[in-house]
């Protein structure tokens, strides 16, 4: 049969292209260069009956000189509604309540984004005590406790060190928490999964600074504290700090923004976001955790037996479909690309499988390289939708063979009262009318 893809080009699909029931097609189809190429715009030139200006019919932006470059570039004025604080019905109320408690949340609009790097201005932010306005000249981090020599570093000192640059995701452990709810909540993609972003981070390996201070062999934990008005504090295992933590000073090539910890933040790759303490100013080396508020009363997961899991630090293997999702609807029958993001706090994504029949059958999606450790990985697979009801799901498998669990598998192991660390499937139900909603299977 012949179908039009959304670029208007003809595409021949035969039986061998179907890789699973329900319209999932071979991912090779989207790798086909003929399909990937945008059809050249058909340009028509009216025949001029008389001598006219040659620019007749051109748009104004072609006919008039453009504006000068800005000191700091902006998005197109047609893109300004792609922002972090418009996450759908009920969302504004939540923000209003949050203003009183100074827990600010700004969520990444994954429905609007492609690739794996989140623009710095759209990176999620969750702050428990607001964003401090820090003068870098007056800020420094001290490393002290079980060390030979306590040392102090300001931004100028940190700039002297050889830096490392890594692309990593950052996820709040409260991301996707509505999926713990016993009945599906109609939170849209952004509100549901927007406490997740991907960035390129540049900084000084924490191990370099710890070596310089001379860490005691008996050290087991580091207590990190920020300079915000709650002096936010978390205990970090020393093994993690020595393995791959960094004091990050740049994000996506420029100095970290205030909402991300300017002028310096701790960054613990693959750990729940709250541990990557922003505005870092104290690292106390010790042999036990401090049992701070955010590792006891918050970010601990209540289990069905009444106990609570504490120090669930590493983000598990997880994925979600971003398009199509409930931030949109399917307007017509035809060919769609199912795309989304997969990530693991332990390492690389090995593969992602997609189902359109609620998990009965699965097909492997194509991964967009380079696949990086502890970073978002984009997956995609073509899907022919001819109006039948469908349930779209993705599941990720990481390089260690860890498989993302279904929601029911996760609920069976941990109940529904955990609040944090949801990493089961996201299921998008597609109705015959093309409407998409959050569903459970």
């Amino acid at each position, binding site marked *: 049969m012949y179908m039009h893809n959304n670029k208007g080009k003809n595409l021949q699909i035969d039986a061998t292209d179907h890789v699973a029931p329900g319209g999932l097609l071979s991912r090779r189809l989207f790798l086909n260069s003929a399909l990937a190429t945008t059809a050249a715009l058909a340009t028509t030139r009216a025949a001029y009956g008389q001598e006219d200006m040659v620019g007749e019919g051109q748009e104004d932006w072609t006919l008039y000189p453009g504006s000068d470059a800005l000191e700091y570039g902006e998005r197109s004025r047609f893109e300004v509604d792609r922002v972090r604080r418009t996450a759908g019905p009920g969302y504004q109320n939540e923000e209003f309540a949050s203003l009183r408690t100074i827990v600010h949340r700004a969520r990444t609009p994954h429905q609007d984004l492609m690739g794996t790097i989140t623009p710095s201005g759209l990176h999620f932010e969750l702050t428990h005590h607001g964003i401090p306005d820090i003068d870098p000249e007056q800020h420094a981090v001290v*490393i002290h406790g079980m060390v030979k020599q306590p040392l102090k570093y300001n931004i100028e000192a940190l700039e002297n060190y050889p830096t490392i640059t890594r692309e990593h995701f950052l996820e709040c452990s409260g991301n996707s928490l509505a999926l713990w709810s016993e009945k599906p909540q109609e939170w849209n993609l952004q509100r549901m999964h927007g406490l997740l972003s991907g960035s390129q981070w540049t900084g000084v390996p924490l191990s370099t600074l710890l070596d310089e201070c001379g860490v005691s062999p008996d050290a087991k934990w580091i207590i990190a*504290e920020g300079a915000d008005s709650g002096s936010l504090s978390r205990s970090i295992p020393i093994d993690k700090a020595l393995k791959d933590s960094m004091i990050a000073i740049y994000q996506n090539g420029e100095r970290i923004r205030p909402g991300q910890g300017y002028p310096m933040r701790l960054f613990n790759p693959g750990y729940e976001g709250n541990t990557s303490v922003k505005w870092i100013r104290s690292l106390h080396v010790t042999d036990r955790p401090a049992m701070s508020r955010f590792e006891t009363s918050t970010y601990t997961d209540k289990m069905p037996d009444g106990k609570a899991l504490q120090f*669930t630090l590493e983000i598990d293997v997880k994925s979600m479909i971003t398009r199509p999702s409930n931030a949109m609807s399917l307007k017509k029958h035809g060919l769609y690309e199912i795309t989304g993001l997969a990530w693991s706090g332990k390492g690389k994504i090995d593969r992602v499988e997609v189902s359109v029949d609620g998990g009965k059958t699965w097909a492997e999606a194509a991964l967009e390289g380079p696949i990086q450790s502890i970073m978002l990985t984009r997956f995609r697979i073509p899907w022919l939708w001819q109006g039948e009801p469908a349930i779209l799901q993705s599941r990720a498998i990481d390089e260690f063979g860890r498989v993302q669990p279904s929601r029911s598998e996760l609920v069976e192991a941990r*109940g529904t009262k955990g609040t944090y660390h949801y990493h089961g499937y996201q299921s998008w139900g597609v109705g015959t009318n093309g409407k998409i909603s959050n569903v459970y299977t």
Partner: protein
Amino acid sequence: MYMRKTLIIAGLLMSTQMGVAQESRFGVPATQADIDKRFWSVFPDGEFLPEGEGNVAEGAELFEYNCNLCHNYPDENDPNKNAIGKLFGGHETMGTDNIDRTIGSYWPHPTTVFNYIRRAMPLIAPMSLTNSEYYSLTAYLLHENGIIGENDVINKDTLPKVQMPNRDGFVNAYPDIPEKYRTKQ
């Protein structure tokens, strides 16, 4: 030949890295004042708890003045609920799978109360009270949760000894989540 070249390059890299490591020492000695300004943590065993002492009556007065406005602010949808989460009660929910996370029903360590409120509260004026006043607020919060008596005093010796009802309610998930709570796959 290939091996030799690799070895030479590796040798060069190593000497370069060592050279850099030797030169890369830019931290300046931190004074005790540098540390005290930035380090606010106290530990469950009482380490780093400051001098000073507080009691329930003074705590009640301080609470009224500094905390009540937010912590008794009713929820817009349900006036029986607190808009920013409960501080008291919830004992009846303990042992169930739907614990109200209050200091009395959920917090495992008494030192965390002092640790948190001294660094972060009152919300619009953190660190604006004295250590004794923070001890008093801690005493009031523990008393209102039915954990200490109304004449008990709280200081660096008594606070770590307070027994929290949910002290044994937590399971360590680092480095691995216990088998019992793992998904099948």
